[in-house]
């Protein structure tokens, strides 16, 4: 049952072949069986039981609210959920129970989707590996557990591949069938990177298409709520539920598209696919380069026009991202002073000491480091040189995309990451800044430009890890993006069953 797509499950629910309660129970069992992967940090099983029974009644009465009725989902622990702990994987919020629910979560719930739990992430979404969490790292189910080789000998103890982050928990939960879809947030690649490493579809919609209300911010001007699912169709159905203007988010806009439900017959003849030459970076893994050119060939063979394009400011993008990210982080994190909510230090010698200690105790080193950098970049004497300069570069990066799309390119095809994955050991040996620079290299520029981008699993690497490619469209062409992705998905036939088999083995071994 857990191998089925949302579309298939919805069908079976309608036909009465399965019940939502049954489905939720299966999902809960899987969550428990794969606890080791550390994908879900807070479960909401009791509430899910009630909600799934309610969904069954709706379905029974022929009053299903949406094709998501009775479908289990999970939300990254950065989306506020009323009465359910929302920690951002930080000590600062480890006892924080929000009094309201994020718009995108509420929208899914109003469609009848059943929240099963909150997923693991890097603290405050600052990271690309989902390892910097107070709950410990999330583990990639592919090749789990992994025994590293050193000088031809197996290294003692188990290592494992990172899930990618920061929405690692959301990716793993979907990959392993704990839930059928999940919500993530993407500021520089936080949905697409874990989707890529975990072999699922990850969509960062256009900035402004989905409400950010209730998404605990990393960088307001870059953050986008998005979805992770096993197929493009599932991704589309989830987007269909969460998109749209929210009067409480002034940066959201009316949805230009009536429905994101995709047709089955898609034609790419006459489509122009751009291949940005700057993405041929020296560190790109051979396997990935191969998959990338294979995909380009697939398009060309189907009658699409594949053209090399240039995004000349790509190389400056990551530095620009670092500055803007740190600056907004410093500002956004200022509210965590231990007064109204969040961790409060026992220090009481003065208000200033209380602020300082609460913040020191509540945040990890990565968060503190970015705050420190951000404060530096926005000092009056540095504002122009760093912040304003970075904003100008952001404009140039955005213009790069606009030019390409205005010149007739429909979608860009790029790798999602430069490698097929990294073991925890490998990844953990780098500092956070290097980690992000390495993993965010192909993803963060679409956040700077606000354009929609999607990572699609294409094939397995020589060591059996998923390889994803990224498709990017122009702003508010999310549906076109999904259609192209669905077409490519149909052509490549990603061997998802390999993971399903591994997982079912793991589940049995428990």
């Amino acid at each position: 049952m857990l191998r089925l797509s949302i579309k298939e499950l919805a069908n079976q629910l309608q036909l009465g072949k399965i019940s939502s309660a049954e489905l939720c129970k299966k999902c809960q069992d899987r969550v428990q069986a794969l606890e080791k992967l550390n994908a879900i940090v807070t479960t909401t099983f009791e509430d899910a039981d009630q909600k799934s029974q309610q969904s069954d009644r709706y379905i029974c009465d022929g009053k299903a609210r949406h094709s998501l009725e009775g479908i289990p989902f999970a939300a990254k622990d950065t989306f506020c959920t009323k009465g359910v702990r929302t920690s951002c994987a930080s000590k600062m919020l480890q006892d924080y129970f929000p009094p309201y629910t994020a718009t995108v979560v509420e929208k899914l719930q109003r469609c009848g989707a059943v929240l099963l739990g909150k997923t693991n992430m890097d603290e405050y979404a600052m990271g690309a590996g989902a390892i910097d969490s107070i709950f410990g790292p999330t583990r990639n189910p592919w090749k789990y557990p992994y025994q590293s080789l050193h000088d031809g000998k197996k290294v003692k103890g188990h290592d494992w591949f990172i899930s990618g982050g920061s929405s690692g928990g959301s990716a793993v939960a979907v990959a392993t069938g704990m839930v059928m879809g999940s919500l993530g947030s993407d500021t520089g690649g936080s949905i697409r990177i874990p989707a890529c490493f975990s072999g699922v579809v990850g969509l960062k919609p256009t900035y402004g298409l989905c409400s950010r209300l209730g998404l605990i911010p990393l960088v307001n001007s870059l953050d986008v709520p998005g979805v992770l699912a096993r197929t493009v169709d599932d991704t589309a159905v989830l987007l269909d539920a969460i998109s749209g203007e929210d009067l409480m988010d002034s940066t959201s806009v009316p949805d230009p598209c009536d429905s994101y439900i995709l047709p089955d017959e898609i034609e790419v003849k006459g489509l122009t696919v751009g291949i940005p030459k700057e993405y041929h970076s020296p560190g790109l893994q051979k396997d990935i380069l191969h998959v990338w050119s294979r995909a380009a060939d697939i398009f060309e063979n189907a009658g699409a026009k594949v053209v090399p394009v240039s995004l000349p400011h790509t190389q400056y993008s990551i530095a620009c991202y670092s500055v803007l990210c740190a600056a907004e982080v410093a500002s956004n994190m200022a509210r965590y002073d231990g007064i109204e909510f969040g961790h409060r230090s026992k220090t009481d010698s003065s208000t200033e000491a209380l602020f300082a200690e609460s913040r020191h105790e509540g945040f990890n080193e990565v968060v503190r480091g970015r705050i420190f950098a951000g404060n530096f970049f926005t000092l009056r004497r540095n504002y122009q040189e760093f912040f304003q300069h970075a904003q100008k570069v952001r404009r140039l990066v955005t213009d790069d995309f606009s030019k390409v799309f205005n010149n007739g390119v429909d979608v860009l095809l790029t790798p999602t990451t430069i490698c097929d994955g990294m073991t925890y050991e490998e990844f953990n040996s780098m500092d956070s800044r290097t980690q992000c620079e390495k993993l965010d290299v192909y993803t963060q520029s679409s956040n700077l430009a606000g354009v929609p981008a999607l990572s699609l699993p294409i094939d397995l690497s020589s060591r059996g890890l998923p390889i994803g490619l990224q498709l990017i469209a122009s702003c508010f062409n999310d549906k076109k993006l999904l259609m192209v992705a669905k077409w490519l998905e149909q052509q490549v036939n990603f061997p998802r069953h390999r993971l399903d088999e591994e997982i079912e083995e793991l589940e049995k071994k428990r």
Partner: protein
Amino acid sequence: MAPPNQLVSYFDAALPGTLPVLNKSCVEAGVLTALALSCKINHKSLFDRKHYFYADLPAGYQITQQRKPIATDGHLTFNIYEGKKKDQGRCHRVNIKQIQLEQDSGKSLHDDINQETLVDLNRAGVGLMELVTEPDMTSGAEAASFVQELQSVLQTIGTCDGKMAEGSLRVDANISVNKPGDPPGVRTEVKNINSIRFVKNAIEFEIQRQIELLEGGGSVVMETRSLDDSGKTVPMRDKEVVLDYRFMPEPNLPPLIVYNDDTIKSAPNPEKAVNIDDIKRRIPELPEQKRQRLTSDYGISYSNATVLVNEEGLADLFEELYSKVATKDVKSVINWCLIDLLQCLHDRNMTIPTSPVPVSRLVDVLNYLQSGHLSAKSALKLLNMLFDKDSRSVSEIMSQEDLQQINSPEEVMKLCEEVMDEESDMVELYQTNKKVINRLMGSIQKKTKGRVDPKMARKIMEDLLER
């Protein structure tokens, strides 16, 4: 007033994930104020974050407009009175540098004994309009007059109730001193001044303090000060360090666009957009315009017009009374408004909007006064009764309380003769001292409780005495 922390939205408490939404009424109030102060309105303005850590600032930053405020380059012209009698005032102009929209913070209460700080967030997040003037004032009195005029303008256009004691209007005064010809000195800022009198006092104190400091060989430190209970300015705690507010754009609020009649059609959502021309059409007559009009329409003095305009609702009432009374005698209407009516109101701590007396009854009193049926004294007495909520009609009160003025010559003559009989010694004295007549007039008024027409009585009495 609501108990502390009872009016706090999730956004006001800066709960994670909450977002700001611009309040349209605040934008309209900003535009209206900008128009009333002859400002240039920015069709596109921007919001910024101003960062500082303070217990009553939950987000750690205030959303304000630093780079591009909603309006700039305005001015306010007004008369300054320096307290001398019969001062006609002198005209002064203060330029307005900018008007910015921002959020208010909460309030902190420091409990020094228990070493605690209490925070009330009721006020947090409320829309604020900050007006920044150019350094165009040179004394406490000038600043006080400016604030008074501004208060009057804001009340007239309804963008602020102007209640300084309640904090609806607060003043931060920046003060520096310099010798003629020298550039301005180092300034200090006195924050949160909450009455017009305190504006004057705080500035005068601070000017004096700075002069003494400089003349004693010291120097002024740029700092934030507050006014203590004894009227002295003292350095504010925690705010001595020069802060770098690390301004940056507010990413959650897109630029604010305001439109006019020509551009409103291009607005993405014209019903929700703010149209400057629409607001312009709604601006009521401003205080200075009203004073000018009153002096020219009614021929009253500028200072009388000022009193009429300064007392909320009085100018309108004056105009209404004048239009409704039978005898169009400006002098009697204005005098009655400025003396009797104001006295009745002030004695009861009332204002015209809270007055219990309908205009129609005031017109009745004024008509009887003008026609001679009521003496000035009786009219005041009657007015007091009306303010004490006497529900009888004016004519009923007059007859039942015997307030009708005695103005038949026969009756007055009779009263004069009675008094002359009773005070024959005074009549005798009159032959050597004519001033004695005043004494006799006093007796007549006493006898009739002030109901006799004094002019007529005096004339008759004189005739009788000279006979």
